[in-house]
C-alpha cells in the first residue's frame, strides 16, 4: 500500500517524466491546491464539477442515488437534486438507450453501468445507435453528450462476472471513444474531458484501484486531453504499453528489469480509441522492442491492434517480435485468478533481453 502511494506520488514529483505529451495541468503547478484522494473520490469530484458547470448534465444508473455501489456518485443527488441524479431500474439496454436519447437532445448524459460485465445488454445500443447516430443522420443529430462509465477489471475475487475487461469489444466500433484512466489524478481529468468531448465516450474505471490508489489530485476543474498517450517512465531498451490497473503491475516489472540493467520505457495509452499511435511509434523507434500488457484475454485483445499497427510502422526498427503479456483465453476464472492474470513475473520473463526472442503468448 505504502509503495503504491509512493509510486504514484513519485510520478508527479519527477520533473523528467513530464516529457512529450504529458500536458497534465501544467498550468497549475504552484498555486493549485491538491488533496490526497482515492480513485472513487477523484471521480466523484469530477462528476460534481461536471454537473456544476453544465446545468444540462445528468447522472443516472443503477443505485447512483445513494452514492453507487463503489461510492463514485456520493453527494450528487443531495447537491443537484433527484431530477438530475437518479436511479434507474435494472435494465442496461434501457439505460443506455435512454441516455442516447437524452444526449440527442443536446444534454450531457453520464450513464453508469454498475459493472462492465453487465454492459452487454447495452452493446446493441452503443454499437448500433450511439456510434452511428452522427454518421447516419449526416450530422443532423448526434449523441456526443453521452458518457458511459463502467468499473472494469479484476478485483481479486470477482469471478466470472465482476472482473471482465471488455474494452476490446468497444475499440472495434468507429464512432465512440474508449478511455481508461490509471490513477485518481488522471481519472478526474480524463473523465471531465470525456464528459465534455463532443463524441460518445465509454469510460472504463479500474475497480481494483477505487480504494487502493491514492494520489494528490488538484481540486480545481482541469481536463486531460484525450487521444494522447503519456510516457510515464523513460527508458531506452524496451517500450511497454498498457492502461488502467495493469500499469501498476508493469511498473513492478520495470523495476525488476532495471535491477538487471534493462532500461524500460512505460507508456500509458489512456485513450484506446482513437489511440495515440505517434507516441508509441516514436518510442518503439527509439527502443526497438515492444511489450503490451492487458488483463483481457490475449486473442483479439487490444494488444493485437497495437502490435499490428506498430509492426506496420516500425518494422525495420524492431529488434524482436512484439510481445503480449495478457490474460488467458478462458472465461475469467474464480479460484484460478492468480494463474490467469498477467503478473509481473510473466511480464519480466517476457521482457528479458538475455533470452532469445520469441513471441511469448501468456
Amino acid at each position: 500500500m505504502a509503495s503504491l502511494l509512493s509510486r504514484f506520488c513519485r510520478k508527479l514529483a519527477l520533473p523528467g517524466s513530464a516529457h512529450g505529451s504529458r500536458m497534465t495541468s501544467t498550468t497549475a503547478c504552484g498555486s493549485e491546491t491538491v488533496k490526497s484522494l482515492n480513485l472513487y473520490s477523484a471521480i466523484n469530484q469530477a462528476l460534481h464539477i461536471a454537473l456544476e458547470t453544465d446545468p444540462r448534465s445528468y447522472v443516472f444508473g443503477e443505485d447512483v442515488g445513494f452514492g453507487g455501489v463503489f461510492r463514485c456518485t456520493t453527494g450528487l443527488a443531495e447537491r443537484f437534486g433527484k431530477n438530475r441524479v437518479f436511479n434507474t431500474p435494472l435494465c442496461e439496454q434501457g439505460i443506455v438507450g435512454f441516455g442516447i436519447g437524452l444526449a440527442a437532445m443536446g444534454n450531457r448524459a453520464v450513464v453508469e453501468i454498475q459493472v462492465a460485465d453487465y454492459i452487454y445488454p447495452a452493446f446493441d445500443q452503443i454499437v448500433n445507435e450511439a456510434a452511428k447516430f452522427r454518421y447516419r443522420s449526416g450530422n443532423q443529430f448526434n449523441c456526443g453528450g453521452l458518457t458511459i462509465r463502467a468499473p472494469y477489471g479484476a478485483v481479486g475475487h470477482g469471478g466470472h462476472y465482476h472482473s471482465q475487461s471488455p474494452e476490446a469489444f468497444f475499440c472495434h466500433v468507429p464512432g465512440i471513444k474508449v478511455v481508461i484512466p490509471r490513477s485518481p489524478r488522471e481519472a478526474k481529468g480524463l473523465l471531465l474531458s470525456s464528459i465534455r468531448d463532443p463524441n460518445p465516450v465509454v469510460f472504463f474505471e479500474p475497480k481494483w484501484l477505487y480504494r487502493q490508489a491514492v494520489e494528490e489530485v488538484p481540486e480545481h476543474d482541469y481536463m486531460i486531453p484525450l487521444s494522447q498517450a503519456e510516457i510515464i517512465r523513460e527508458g531506452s531498451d524496451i517500450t511497454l504499453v498498457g492502461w488502467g490497473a495493469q500499469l501498476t503491475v508493469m511498473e513492478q516489472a520495470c523495476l525488476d528489469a532495471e535491477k538487471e540493467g534493462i532500461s524500460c520505457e512505460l507508456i500509458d495509452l489512456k485513450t484506446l480509441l482513437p489511440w495515440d499511435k505517434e507516441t508509441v511509434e516514436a518510442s518503439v523507434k527509439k527502443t526497438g522492442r515492444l511489450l503490451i500488457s492487458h488483463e483481457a484475454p490475449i486473442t483479439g485483445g487490444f494488444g493485437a491492434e497495437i502490435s499490428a499497427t506498430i509492426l506496420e510502422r516500425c518494422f525495420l526498427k524492431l529488434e524482436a517480435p512484439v510481445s503480449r503479456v495478457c490474460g488467458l483465453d478462458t472465461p475469467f476464472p474464480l479460484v484460478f485468478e492468480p494463474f490467469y492474470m498477467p503478473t509481473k513475473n510473466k511480464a519480466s520473463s517476457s521482457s528479458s533481453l538475455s533470452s532469445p526472442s520469441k513471441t511469448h503468448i501468456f
Partner: protein
Amino acid sequence: YLPHWNWNCLTTDSQSEKSAVWIMALSRLSSRSNIISRPLSAAFRRSISTDTTPITIETSLPFTAHLCDPPSRSVESSTQELLSFFRTMALMRRMEIAADSLYKAKLIRGFCHLYDGQEAVAIGMEAAITKKDAIITAYRDHCIFLGRGGSLYEVFAELMGRQDGCSRGKGGSMHFYKKDSSFYGGHGIVGAQVPLGCGIAFAQKYSKEEAVTFAMYGDGAANQGQLFEALNISALWDLPSILVCENNHYGMGTAEWRAAKSPSYYKRGDYVPGLKVDGMDAFAVKQACKFAKEHALKNGPIILEMDTYRYHGHSMSDPGSTYRTRDEISGVRQERDPIERIKKLVLSHDLATEKELKDMEKEIRKEVDDAIAKAKDCPMPEPSELFTNVYVKGFGTESFGADRKEVKAALP
C-alpha cells in the same frame, strides 16, 4: 413504505384441538404427582408421529389471480411432508448461516448471496414437482440446489472453491448446477436465465415429457427487457414455462416501488395469466406450483409471484440495513418466518414435541458442521483445470509459467 402482510395462519382443525386437549390433560396429570404418574407419563411418551392420515392445511392468504381462477386455499399434506418440510427448511437455514460464518472467515471468497427467509419457496416448489421438471434461477441458488437433491458437502465444497464442489470448484456460489435433477443453475447476470428457461421448456414440450420449467428471477430482474421477450415467445408457442418472480421487495438496495411502475409482478405478463402467492408459506407455494404445472402443461406460460423476504442483505458485502429498518426485518422474522410457521403447524397437529424438534435441529447443526469439516479437507482443483471445458476440443493454446516449466497446459 412497508410491505403489507396479514397472517392468520393458525387455523387449527377440530382434530388437532382434540389432541391438544388430550395433551393438556396428560400434562396436568403428570405434573400433579410425580411418583405415581411417572410410569404413566412414560407410557404416554411417544416418538415423532408416523401417522399416515392426510392432513389438510389452509394457506395463510388466499391467492390473487390474474386472468385465471385461483386454486383453493386447502392444501393436502401429510405428517411426513410436514416433518420433512421442517427438517429441510431448518437444514437450508442452518446451511446459509454457516455459509455466512465461512464467508466472514474468508474461506468463501467472491460473492455469496444467502437465501435465508426465502426457504419456503424452494421447499414448496420441490414438493409440487418431480426431478424431471427443470428449475433455473439467478445467483441465490444454494437452497434450490439442496432442494433438488444436492448434498451439503457439494454445496460447501463449491462455495470454498474445492474440486468436489458441484461445479468442480469452477463456478462458486453463483453457479450451482445439477444435471441429473434438471437444475440448470446458477446465473450471475440477472434476467438472462429467463429466456434460457423458456428454451428449456421448448425442449421439454418437443420431447413430450410432460415436464415444465420454472424460470426464477427477482423483483429487480423483473424490469429486464428479455423477460418480456421470453414471455411473448412462450405465450406464442404455448411453452410449458412458469416464470417465478421471487419478490423479496428489494433489488439489491432498491425497494420495488422505486424500480417498478407496477410492482404487481404477477400481472406483468399482461396476456399471460399470473398468481400472487404468499412466499413465506410453504403450502401456498406448493399449491401454486402444482396449479401452475397443470396450467402450463395445458395452456402455456404462467407467472407466479412469490411474496417473500430475505433476512440477509443482497450479498455478504451488503449489511442489509441501510435501505430497510431493523424493525422491518425482525418484524417479518417474528410474524412470517417460514420455519416458525411449519413448526407451529407441527406442534399444533401434535406430530412432534418441542424437544424432538430441537433435537432435530441439533442433528442438522451437526450434519452441517460435518459437511463443512469434510469440505475443508477437500483439495482445490488442479491448476490445469483453468483450461478445461472452455471448448470441447480443437483449440490449442499453450500457457507457460514464469520459469517456462509449470502450469503448462494445452487446451485439447
